[in-house]
Every structure is written in structure tokens, then in C-alpha cells.
């Protein structure tokens, strides 16, 4: 890969300063996507700012029905967190299904969200649960945070520090893996919240993660797998590639929604 300068700041302020001072700086949070991209010369940042040495950047806490997860918390840690398992078991389950065991030991929630891969799992949970993305500068709602494939509302020198998940009444996640990459070819997160049912779909949309109004309405009226059957799920705006056409993905949205609802706790 191309040369880059490595920084390991001890504070958020130092990290922001390192990013601001870099010609083309990138946050290194787990590197499970960034490093392969660099190895293939698809990215060549001038500086890498490793946020894993910053105090308070990783870990899970729960208070008043809100689960706060530090940005540098690994997928394995989220999956194993008793707080997450207790309050949002679907999120623990989602984390336990990202990548493979070795990837889960290194990959982090903040890294995944900042990258906003259209086939990543976490965006579905963040949007599905209406979580808040906390950065060094502000708090961002999921509707504002995700701006399409690999695009987010983050400024160049803005760093995610934590994500705040309100615990739902019930939630579930089901994904159909891309047979080759094992990323979500279609993943559906359903949540029953105080504000109604939220359904977020990842892996399928050609503009990244999205909410599905039809499924939300149907499940709002009847939170059962059967309720998904009558919903019209259009293939418009869905991804199409060698593994799955838009039509097939539309079918997977329905099937994964049913599984997510059936498994919701």
C-alpha cells in the first residue's frame, strides 16, 4: 500500500487536530474495510488517525433505557455486552453476525457507520432503532446521518465518538448474506418503539440504508410475519448485481422482514 503517517492520539481533541492537519486524513477505528481498500490501492490517505487509544472511546453503558456504545467498541464486544443483550438483543445478534470472528475482534461500530457501506449491518440498526450518532461536534439523527452509499453527514475532521440507542419494546434483525462476500445482500431491522414500528433495510437500496414505509404501516397495524405478505415491495431503487437482481432483493426484503418479526424480542 502507499505510505501514510500513523497517529495515535490520546484525546478526541488531538485526534481532530491530527485530522485537520492532514492533507487527506482518515480515521482508523478497526481498519477491517479501510486497510483492504488501501492494500488494493483504492484508497491512499496521507494520514491515519487511530482513535482506539482514546479514553472512553470504547465500551457500552446503559441508563434510562438508552444504550450508549463507544465508537471504538468492537463488534465482538457489542455482541458480548450484557447490557446490549438485555435491552436490545437484536443488536447483539446483529453484531455477532458481522463478518467473521476475526473481523469482529477488530472491526468497530464507529468505523462501520462512518464508512456507511451499503451492505453493512449497523446502519440498519441505527436507522431501525432511531439511534443518535454522537460526534465530537454534535449529535446527528439517523435520518440526517446517512447520505447514500459510502456517504455520511460527517465533516472531514469530524469523529464519531458514540452511538446512543434507545431500547425498543421489541426488535429483530434478519439478513440474507451475499454468498461470496457474506455482507448483507439484504438485511432488515424491525423495531417496535414508542413512536411506532420502524423498518430499516440495508444491502438492498441503491442509495444505501432506507426505511420501508409500507412494511412500517403494515407492521404498525399488526406486528406479525404474516402482515408482511400483503405489502407491496417495489424493486425500484434497489441494487442489481451478479448475485441478486432488484426483483430478487425485493423478495428478500419481504422474507427477511418476516424473519426479523418472527425473531423479534
Amino acid at each position: 500500500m502507499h505510505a501514510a503517517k500513523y497517529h495515535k492520539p490520546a484525546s478526541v481533541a488531538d485526534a481532530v487536530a491530527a485530522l485537520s492537519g492532514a492533507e487527506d486524513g482518515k480515521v482508523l477505528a478497526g481498519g477491517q474495510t479501510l486497510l483492504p481498500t488501501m492494500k488494493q490501492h483504492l484508497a491512499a490517505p496521507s494520514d491515519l488517525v487511530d482513535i482506539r487509544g482514546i479514553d472512553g472511546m470504547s465500551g457500552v453503558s446503559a441508563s434510562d433505557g438508552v444504550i450508549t456504545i463507544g465508537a471504538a467498541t468492537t463488534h465482538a464486544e457489542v455482541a458480548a455486552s450484557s447490557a446490549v443483550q438485555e435491552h436490545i438483543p437484536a443488536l447483539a445478534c446483529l453484531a455477532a453476525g458481522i463478518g467473521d470472528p476475526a473481523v469482529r475482534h477488530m472491526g468497530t461500530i464507529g468505523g462501520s457507520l462512518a464508512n456507511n457501506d451499503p451492505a453493512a449491518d449497523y446502519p440498519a440498526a441505527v436507522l431501525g432503532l432511531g439511534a443518535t450518532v454522537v460526534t465530537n461536534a454534535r449529535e446527528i439523527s439517523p435520518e440526517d446521518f446517512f447520505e447514500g452509499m459510502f456517504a455520511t453527514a460527517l465533516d472531514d475532521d469530524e469523529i464519531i465518538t458514540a452511538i446512543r440507542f434507545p431500547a425498543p419494546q421489541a426488535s429483530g434483525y434478519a439478513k440474507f448474506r451475499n454468498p461470496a462476500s457474506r455482507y448483507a445482500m439484504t438485511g432488515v431491522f424491525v423495531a417496535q418503539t414508542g413512536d411506532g414500528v420502524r423498518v430499516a433495510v440495508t444491502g438492498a437500496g441503491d442509495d444505501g440504508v432506507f426505511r420501508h414505509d409500507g412494511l412500517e404501516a403494515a407492521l404498525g397495524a399488526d406486528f406479525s410475519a404474516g402482515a408482511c405478505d400483503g405489502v407491496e415491495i417495489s424493486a425500484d431503487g434497489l441494487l442489481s448485481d451478479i448475485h441478486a437482481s432488484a426483483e430478487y432483493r425485493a423478495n428478500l426484503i419481504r422474507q427477511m422482514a418476516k424473519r426479523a418479526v418472527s425473531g423479534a424480542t
Partner: protein
Amino acid sequence: MSDGIGARVKRREDKRFITGKGKYTDDIRMDNQAYAAFVRSPHASARVTNIDASAALAMEGVVAVHTGPEMKEDGIGDIITGWAITSKDGSPMTCGVWNPMVTEFARYVGDAIAIVIADTQDLARIAAEAVEVTYEELPACVNPADALKDGAPQVHGNVPGNLIFDWEVGDEAAADEGLAKATHVTEIDLINNRLSPNAIEPRSAVAIFDDAEDHYTLYSTSQNPHVARLVLSAFYNVAPEHKLRVIAPDVGGGFGSKIYIYPEEIACLWASMKTKRSVKWTAQRTESFMTDAHARDHVTKARMGFDADGKITGFKIDTIANIGAYVSLFATATPTYLYGTLASGVYDIPGIYCNVKAVHTNTAPVDAYRGAGRPEATYMIERLIEMSARQLGMDPAELRRKNFIREFPYQTPVILQYDSGDFDACLDKAQALADVAGFPARKAEAAARGKLRGIGYSTFIEACGIAPSAAVGSLGSAVGLWESAEVRVNPVGTIEILTGCHSHGQGHETTFCQLAAEKFGVPIDNVKLVHGDTDAVQFGMGTYGSRSGPVGMSAVMKALEKVEAKVKKIAAHQLEASEDDIVIEGGEVSVAGTDKKMAWHEVGLAAYIAHNLPEGMEPGLKEGSFFDPVNFSFPSGCFICEVEVDPDTGETEIVQFVSADDFGVIINPMIVEGQVHGGVTQGIGQALTECVVYDESGQLVTGSYMDYTMPRADNVPSFKVEHSSTPSPTNPLGIKGCGEAGAIGSPPAVINAITDAIGTDNLQMPATPQAVWMALQSAQTSMAAE
């Protein structure tokens, strides 16, 4: 003897691998090591009009950039093909010239344009991107079915219509007659999906030029270092054979893809001479996907006719085989003499005709990969048989039995003469193992869970250990396909076996030594295998085509027999007995019926001390053999696969897979079973997950594991493997070969099971979830329409 033939001896090579001490090519690093990277064509078809390496050369640490025209100027030869095919009209095949690096036209994405040498691997790769190549883009021909059409872009100027050859085998009139009198004809249109072999060790080369000695050494990920040396020497003009040593150290899987001598090895040797540096190149996985020879890629129409009793009356096949941009070493043999000649399968068919048109396209070269031609033949035959059973309303096993060949030798209408086999026995065994009788209950139980359960058969035969040399020569092979061996008994009685075969996962360091343990009763720890180094072993043809057992081990056995004869002579002389009375057993050489004996090592010592040898005998105890079989060997078997399909998503789970093989005599059942597991999994990969995809412009879409679906542990079940053996009569050990059967027989078993489950035969490989779901949707749509 516990370590002899038939023993489940644990592998003796394992320790270095499980402790991380294996020595693969990329593990080798010389003192003056430089690293190579290749500039590769990003276009499927283009004329290279300019190469500007100035920016790359200006980088600190970049040693050199060399191009195809320079290579040509230095007299490096073009890449050869090892098998000349004659078209049905008697004309020789025509194929395009393959320059190791592009001299003017780039013909597939990945075609090498220039080699960049630098002090580090990272730098070589970065500098390669800084080489500015000017391309004039040309239209590309990508799809084999389109290659023969009027107006298709021409891949090579000297190959009109992209047609390399138009070959036939069999008797067209007999096939037509059989089909004409048939009461039922089953027709099929098949695509045999293009695959990438994907040994997990990427290809790698370390080329070392010794200026003082005017000598080259090449460490290479090769299945056949001697063939590599021969070709590099005789055709590519790198160096004469005595000045070129090729070593294939530990090699991390091959499956055929490491038979060939690729442009990269040639370029590294040449660059090593030019730069006076040792040059190492190791492929990145994306490079492997681009440049390792691909496999299969057939488009086939076939028709099989049956009489009212279910007996096959005729079989006619039309295949277009995609050879890719250049004709790789065995690319032409694969879709002809390893394909059409297998068209009889395990069935007695009076008339067979197979026509194969081989075409160039602007894609990577296609060549032999585990099974090579035989999987394509087996898939076609076994899908046709299963479909026919469904159309005729017959049990698929019974239809097979009705047509099985039962008398041997059996002359097929397509050249081959089968020497042995018992297809009923394999089918019986597999049916028992699969509990076929219990299938309806299992299907009903699955249905209650919302799953579609299906069962599929494959009864197959294949041809291994291609031979004899004179016969393959008459069919167009440029080489003989014998194998050599040398057995050296040291003065202390320990034994070294030298073979021209190469082990890259097959466990030869264990199984070849079992032969000596069997023959002489010596402990296997006193036997060692030497292979993979042209300085150590005189010559050999390498390992592919399941030949190491039937051909390579036979050569060892012949050499062992010669050693045995000399040992008996020495012992008879020293023990004052008749040679005929000498018995070698349990590490002792004794006179039958007496207490006169010598320890095994005493005979070795006597041979070398040579104080008391029979009159006229030369000292020493070393014998060699070149074994050229009289025929192919013919492994056969039956696979039965059971699947459950989720109708909601089209996802297939293989819930049971049984195998009953006839490999003839088995040297080490543990290793043979491992070969079956691996081969079947590669076949399952072809059936369910794997496909190389190029887009319309010839860009490779499946360039990494993100898009090319390798079978993983959760894609396959544990297998039930048993054997039903009839020894091969054509080699001294009775071995038939076991390396490829799994990959040859399994794809149709899997697809037949899925099509049984979903109730439609309208399905091509790979049967991905999407493909199966779509097949289900269209079946439902057409049912609704009826």
C-alpha cells in the same frame, strides 16, 4: 505390515505444516532480493501504442521496467501449446500467438504489458501503476456463444472466425440412426460454468540468476517442475536444461492451475538475468483471478434417444468450448480427448457423436482444472439421464441400471476402452448408504417444515493417468505421459524414493513410502520421498490428472521390484542359497525354510562395501524405472445427493452427500477419503456457488472473494464415503486414481437433487439462491399458465 498398502498411515509431512515450518515459494527470500510487479492491460482488447516508464523509473528503489518487445528482442520464445488437435476436415488447428508479454495487442484484462522490478514489493506495485501505457481500445469478443457469429470481433488476426478447431469423435451416422429410431428423445441446453481454480497459495516465483556460473534457479509454485524446466529451456530459450534448476518446494494446492508455465515465471527469470538481482513475484488474489488459467466454460446442446424399454439408442453432442485469449498448455486436450471420449459414461450406447468447436475470446486462458473435460462430460450425461427418467416416468436408478456396461473390456464408440468396473455395486452401495428407501418420509417431514427436499444421482466413470505415450502422441500430445522413479537403498538400509510426481496436498511423502514399507517390511520412518527438484530427480511429468497413483506409484513399484531382484541376488550369494528361496519380510532377508538370514540393512551395506558380491554384479543398490502404462485407468462411482431448498429465498442446503467409489486398490484410505471430500466440495462449488463473470466489455466482475463465491465450511455437509473396488488390470498396483472423481461426479448429483426438489429441470449452474428462486418463480408462472 502396518505401514503398507491399505494402512491409514498418518501423514508424515504434516508436522512442518501444522507448526508453521512449511517452505512455500513466497517464504523464500534471497540476499539480493528484488520484487516484481506487472503492468497489466485494463482492457479486454487493445493495441498498445506507447509505454512510458519514466515516472516509474524515477522512483527511488525502482530497479528496472522491461516490456514485451524487449523480451522478444532478447529471443525469449512464445508460449506453446502441448496438444495439437486436428479438425474433422483433417486440417490442423489454428491458434493465436501468445507472447509472454504483450508486443502489440493486449487480448484480455490482465494480459501482461511490462514487468517492474523494485527493492520492495509495495514499491514494485506502486511503480507498476506509474507506468503510463497508451492504449487504442478495440472491440472485444467475450461470450463463447457469440465468438463464431458473423461480425464477431476477431481475437487474433490469424484465426478466422475465432475458430481454433472443429473436432469430432464418434460416428455421426450411428448416432443419427439411434436418435431416429428412438421412441423418446431428451434434449438439453447446458452451460458448464466458467471456474477459477483458486489454490489458496497464490502463484509465486523466485528467479535467481547466478552471473558467475551462468546458471538459473527458479523456485516455482509448480505441479511439474521438470516439465517447467523442459519448456523454459526448449521453447522459451531461458537457458539450456543443465543451466536451469527448477524447484517446486511446498506448493499450496494446484488443482491443475499450477501445471502451466505462465508468463510471470518466464519474465522473472529473464528479468533476473537483466537486473542481476534475484526476482520474486507473488500474485495478489485479484491477479490470480485475472491470470490463473480458468476452467470449463462450455456451451452445449445434446440429445439422447431411448427406445420404449428405456435403452439408450443414440447420443449426439454439440459443444462450443471457450479457450480464452490464448491457447494454454493443455487447453486443447481438455474439451476433446478428455471430454468427448467420456461421452459414453457408464452406459452401453450404440451410437455417439460429439462435435466440439473451440473458440478464442478476449478472456483469460482456459485450461485443465480438477477433472478437466470429464466433469463437463459427466454433467451433461448425468443430467440427461436424470431428466430422461423423469420424462419417461422411470426411477432414475433403474434407468441407469438398464443401460449400465457390465462386460469388460468394453470398447466405447468414442475411442476409450474401459478395462474394469462394477457400476451396479457402486450404485447398490450408495443407495444403501443414502437410505434411499427412507427418502419419501424425509421429504414429507421437510415439507411440513416448508422445505422442498430432493434427491439426485450421479453414476460416473472417468479416465485417469493419461497414457500410453505412443497413443497420446498419435492423438496430438507433444509429450509422453509416463512417469519415472528411482529407489536408492543407502548403505545403512534406509531408502530414498525419487519421483517425478509432485505433492502439493496429496500426501505423497506418506503414500509413496508406504510402497517400500509394503514391499520390504521396513519401518516407514526409514523411507523418504524426494521430489520437486530438477537437480535431485532426473525427469518426470509431474502430478495432475490423478496420475500419481496409477502411473507414478507404478514406476516406484517397478523400481522396487528391481531392487528386490538385486537384493535377492546379493542375499542368495551371501547366504549360499538359491535366489528363488530368498524371502524379504519384516525387515529381514532370509532363506525360506531355514534359519539363515540377513538383516535388511546388512544387504544394503554388502551392496556398497562390495567385498562379496556375485560375480559380475556392480556395487550399489539403486534402481530406476520409467513406467508407461498400457491404457488409461478408469475410476468410477456413484454419488447421491440430498438437498433442502427454501422456497422463500431459493437457498439450497445439502443435507446429505454419499459417495461409493471404485478407485481400484487403495494405498491409504485416509488420504483417499480426503481427496474425495475435497473433490466433492469443489464440485459442489461448481454446482452451487462458483462462476467467473466477465461483463460485456470483457471486464472481470469476479476479481476477488467479495464476488467469486468459494464454498465455505457452512456450504457443505460432512460426507459419507465408502468404496467398492475392482482393481485396475493395467498397472502393477491395481490403482485407478482418486484425485478428480469428486469434482467430476458431484455437480450433476447436486443439480439433479435440486431439480428434483423444485420440480423443474430449467436450471443452470451455479444454482445460487437467486437462480433457484427464479427457477421456482418461472415454474410456478408456467404452471399457472397451464
